[in-house]
């Protein structure tokens, strides 16, 4: 892997701070830069760490603890980490910036271990060559002894054994529990009732159409639920459920039929990660239909995002509608 040296950090800083390299060099705490690079294990031509996400997080963590530019600590740590990844052929799909801020804050304050952050980041990396509830919306508490809580405990045990935590475990079982997701960054996050119902309906829609569950089926599940913050946001934008169904059917009929039908389309995974990130960015400890809806825009090319945009509900408008609804329901959000 290609490492970074002090000169790299100075050049990165000059771009981040918008100054020339001489000014950046004059402002830099060279000793801190050296300490950070030594801690990260990237100094020299042959970095010790072989895993890109772990190495990038190690670099960010080290720069947070030994900031060469203390006034721009987090910004520089992330910029350097992204540059390190790019140099080594990796692109980070950080679709929800608000969630990244939370992750970096938690890493900086040691609420998150580097291993947890690396697991979170690894799930969002792709090879560079690839470019290359409104009223009644409540937090659902996770009951002790539920399947999700059992998985959480199992994940906790794995953490203690020092193995890398799984980036995402999804549970939508047939039992009575709400189901939810578990990530190394968030721990368990339960689905709201509407969200769980939307996922069950999405699964039914994908089965009916004989395709793996993709973002468009999640959108169909969402509108078929008929209630919840996500649906209310679409209603506010004048998007009719019938129009969504028509458009999705049209898009699906044009798409090539997959040779093998698995449970999840590859595009869905990115939506799942974005969905969790939307909840994190909003400071929520549950997953609701509004997080589903916003996550559908993580990739402008997916069928759900295209359908919504075609129907006049672009990402910007959807975000504004969700923010309005949240404000009206008394929940101040920052993301």
């Amino acid at each position: 892997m290609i490492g970074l040296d002090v000169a790299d950090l100075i050049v990165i800083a000059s771009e981040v701070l918008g100054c020339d390299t001489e000014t950046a060099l004059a402002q830099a705490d060279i000793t801190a830069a050296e300490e950070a690079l030594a801690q990260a294990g990237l100094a020299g031509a042959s970095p010790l760490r072989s895993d890109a996400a772990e190495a990038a997080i190690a670099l960010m963590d080290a720069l947070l603890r030994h900031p060469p530019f203390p006034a721009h600590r987090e910004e520089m740590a992330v910029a350097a980490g992204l540059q390190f990844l790019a140099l080594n052929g990796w692109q980070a799909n950080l679709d929800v910036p608000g969630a990244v801020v939370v992750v970096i804050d938690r890493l900086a304050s040691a609420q998150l271990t580097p291993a947890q952050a690396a697991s979170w980041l690894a799930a969002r990396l792709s090879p560079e060559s690839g470019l290359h509830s409104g009223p009644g919306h409540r937090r659902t508490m996770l009951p002790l002894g539920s399947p999700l809580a059992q998985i959480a405990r199992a994940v906790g045990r794995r953490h203690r054994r020092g193995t890398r935590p799984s980036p995402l475990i999804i549970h939508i079982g047939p039992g009575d529990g709400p189901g939810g997701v578990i990530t190394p960054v968030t721990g368990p996050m339960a689905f709201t009732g509407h969200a769980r119902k939307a996922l069950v309906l999405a699964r039914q829609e994908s089965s009916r159409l004989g395709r793996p569950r993709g973002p468009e089926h999640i959108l169909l599940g969402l509108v078929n639920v008929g209630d919840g913050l996500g649906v209310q946001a679409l209603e506010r934008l004048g998007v009719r459920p019938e129009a969504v169904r028509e458009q999705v059917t049209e898009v699906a009929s044009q798409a090539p039929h997959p040779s093998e039908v698995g449970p999840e389309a590859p595009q869905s995974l990115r939506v799942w990660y974005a969905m969790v990130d939307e909840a994190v960015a909003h400071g929520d400890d549950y997953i609701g239909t509004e997080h589903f809806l916003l996550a559908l825009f993580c990739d402008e090319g997916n069928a759900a995002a295209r359908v919504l945009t075609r129907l006049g509900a672009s990402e910007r408008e959807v975000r504004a509608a969700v923010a309005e609804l949240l404000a009206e329901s008394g929940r101040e959000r920052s993301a």
Partner: protein
Amino acid sequence: MTGTEPAPAGSAQTKNMVLRLDPVLAERLAAVAEVEGRTVSDVAREAIAALVEARRNDKRFLRLLEDNLARHRRLLDLLRGDES
């Protein structure tokens, strides 16, 4: 640790820098300084500046950096706001 020292007349403000160097490298640095009749810190500062200049001419490095900063502009702005 670093710190500032009074700027010599006609030059920009400079900083004290403490560098941890490999003993062999430190010896070579001292030798160069002695031969050229300059201080070790002068030679070290010049060496770092030369390295930075070399990196500025690395087109791939700069292209990736510009792409990265452009792609993640919103994130970096948020982080900047978070720190201010």
